[in-house]
């Protein structure tokens, strides 16, 4: 029995390794469907709506890539993954790309052999606490019970934060965001910590959002972005430049409303290169010339995606902050389309 289990594990490892070897672009085209790893449920970023259609900020990245590669934004198979399963799924070739609020870190990039193609949300780790707890700063949390999603960078940041401030805490590791919220609402933990965007998204789903405060401390840098496997640079380029196209489009004033009109040619050469009327950038990627226009027609530019899912007019109500264009004091800066 034991021996056969070992054999089984090795066989699976062997098979998985075999599946990962061919060109991802060809695989996706042959399959006619993009396998995209997403969160198991984080309102605003990735969550199924009432009709079981996936919606959200991270989902639109998947849709944009599917539109650019296959010309069909709905040709996506969403694979919900927990913090624990996401890297194995990507490494094993179960998904083509991971768009699941994943922090870009050195060891994930280098040691785990993934390729982060950019940043779609500049985040930081924060705390949420009930207002009646009377806590105004994370440094008041000495002795508190802290719920935390296990298998994430937040776990390490939390240990570092409390250690460097010489205060104690009791970690309660929890598998998913939903379970953590359940524990927080039941009072089984005093505070919950995760990326500040996630906290805002979760608070929006609470019965009385006003009863909860997000503490002012941001204890880490969390650049979140989509990633692919090492070793298939062509595929990495496609995902990277699709993301860049969304960002650049906002800077250049291309929206889902005017993309069709602008695709007929404009006086701005960069817009023309982006939308494929000159330069042949799509061909270099191995895609159609109108790849970026396809993506933009579906999802709109970065600003539109942001406002639609997590912006100030949504229940989640996040300000652009660091995620504004560089021209407006933010960090978004797409390299030139040339």
């Amino acid at each position: 029995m034991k021996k056969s289990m070992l054999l089984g594990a090795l066989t699976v490892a062997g098979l998985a390794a075999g599946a990962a070897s061919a060109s991802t672009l060809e695989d996706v085209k042959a399959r006619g469907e993009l396998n995209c790893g997403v969160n198991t449920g984080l309102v605003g970023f990735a969550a199924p709506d009432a009709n079981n259609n996936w919606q959200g900020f991270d989902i639109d990245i998947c849709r944009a890539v599917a539109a650019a590669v296959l010309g069909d934004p709905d040709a996506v198979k969403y694979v919900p993954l927990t913090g624990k399963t996401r890297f194995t799924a990507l490494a094993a070739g179960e998904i083509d790309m991971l768009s699941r609020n994943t922090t870009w870190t050195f060891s994930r990039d280098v040691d785990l052999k993934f390729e982060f193609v950019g940043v779609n949300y500049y985040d930081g780790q924060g705390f949420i606490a009930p207002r009646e707890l009377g806590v105004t700063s994370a440094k008041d949390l000495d002795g508190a019970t802290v719920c935390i999603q296990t298998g994430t960078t937040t776990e390490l940041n939390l240990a570092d934060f409390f250690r460097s401030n010489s205060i104690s805490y009791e970690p309660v590791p929890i598998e998913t965001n939903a379970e953590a919220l359940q524990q927080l609402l039941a009072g089984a933990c005093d505070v919950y910590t995760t990326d500040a965007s996630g906290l805002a998204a979760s608070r929006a789903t609470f019965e009385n959002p006003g009863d909860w405060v997000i503490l002012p401390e941001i204890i880490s840098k969390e650049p979140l972005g989509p990633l692919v496997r090492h070793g298939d640079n062509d595929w990495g380029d496609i995902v990277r430049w699709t993301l860049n196209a969304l960002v650049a489009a906002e800077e250049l004033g291309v929206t889902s409303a005017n993309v069709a009109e602008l695709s007929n040619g404009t006086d701005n050469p960069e817009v023309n290169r982006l939308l494929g009327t000159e330069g042949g950038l799509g061909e270099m990627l191995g895609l159609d010339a109108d790849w970026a226009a396809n993506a933009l027609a579906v999802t709109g530019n970065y600003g539109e995606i942001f406002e639609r899912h997590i912006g100030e007019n949504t229940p989640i109500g996040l300000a652009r902050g660091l995620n504004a264009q560089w021209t407006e004091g933010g960090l978004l800066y797409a390299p030139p389309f040339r």
Partner: protein
Amino acid sequence: MTTLTDPPQESFRLSMLLNDTRYRSYTFQFIALICLVGFIGWLVSNAAQNLEDLGQDISYQFLGESSGYDINQRPIAYDSQSTHMRAAIVGVLNTLIVAVLGCVTATILGVVAGVLRLSNNWIVSKLMAVYVEAFRNVPVLIWILIIFFIMTASLPGPSAFRGDDPSASMVLDAFAFTNRGVYVPKPLWLDGSMIVVITFLLSIVAMFAYRRYATKLLFDTGRLLPMFWPSVGILFLPTLIMFFLLGRPIGLEYPELRGFNFQGGIQVRGSLIALWFALAIYTGAFIAENVRAGIQAISKGQTEAAASLGLRPNRIMNLVILPQALRVIIPPLISQYLNLTKNSSLAIAVGYMDVTGTLGGITLNQTGRAIEAILLLMLFYLTISLAISAVMNVYNNAVKLKER
């Protein structure tokens, strides 16, 4: 002239490997073995080759690096600067804690339920039947989650104990039942406490010595010494006398509400309680069936013979039936213990940091060394399981029927 000749001394010839039935089976077994080894070798080398192509080398260096995460239940000193190896050991100890607690509780529950299920009292036997059928037919993961959610939802948070008119209060001022766990007083070992502990240990030895003496006296001379009260006296009196003579060297540290949580005392976390109880009642239901099977395997004549000798039902069970039934009960009991230990790996569902949660969970995630961590985990569970069955087999050999 000799008509009879000795049969020619046969020397071994290679063809006999196939033609001689004495050797043929060995030949085929050997060929099968070679094929099996070759197949395993091919699988291993194939997996190793594929892993190498993926750029994933097997390396256990991460075990020496600092882990960077905290663990709430720490049987040994551990902080976020400790190594992954130490985090794994903390996890192993946590697994063993819940396994031992679970096995003991499951055995008690199982024996009681198994015996009562055979009771002549209709209500008692039906109640036990309901217990067994309800608990062994629902997956243990569900039980773990149910108990955990009931605890978090029904018990008050620590803040309910606060204020001038708290909505919750501590039981006997010593035990606090909160949705984060149960806080119980912790013994404080002051000067001289070792003497009390040693006295108590000696009392245990003395109690067994007295019981053995009384039994021997009964068998040899037929004189019946009282058993229960002297045992209790020997067990507790010397310890109590020593305790007060030395001026109460063992104190209690009571939990009290300070800051966000109860501080002091021992915290039995909700996750441990949920896991422990769920595993115990689930496995207890299986053990109850083993016990029932064991008892029913003893012929009814034994009960009748014992009754005709004038033994009362309690004694029939304790002195005649159970000792014989143990032979039937122990072997399946071993596998129930193994099941319980392996089921404890469901701990992550309630955030209990067992070895699957530390080594197979956080360490695996933070280092990305999935294959290495899983292999280590398999090795650990294999070792634990083999150790449990080794110990239980020794016990089984001690109680099994001695055939002469």
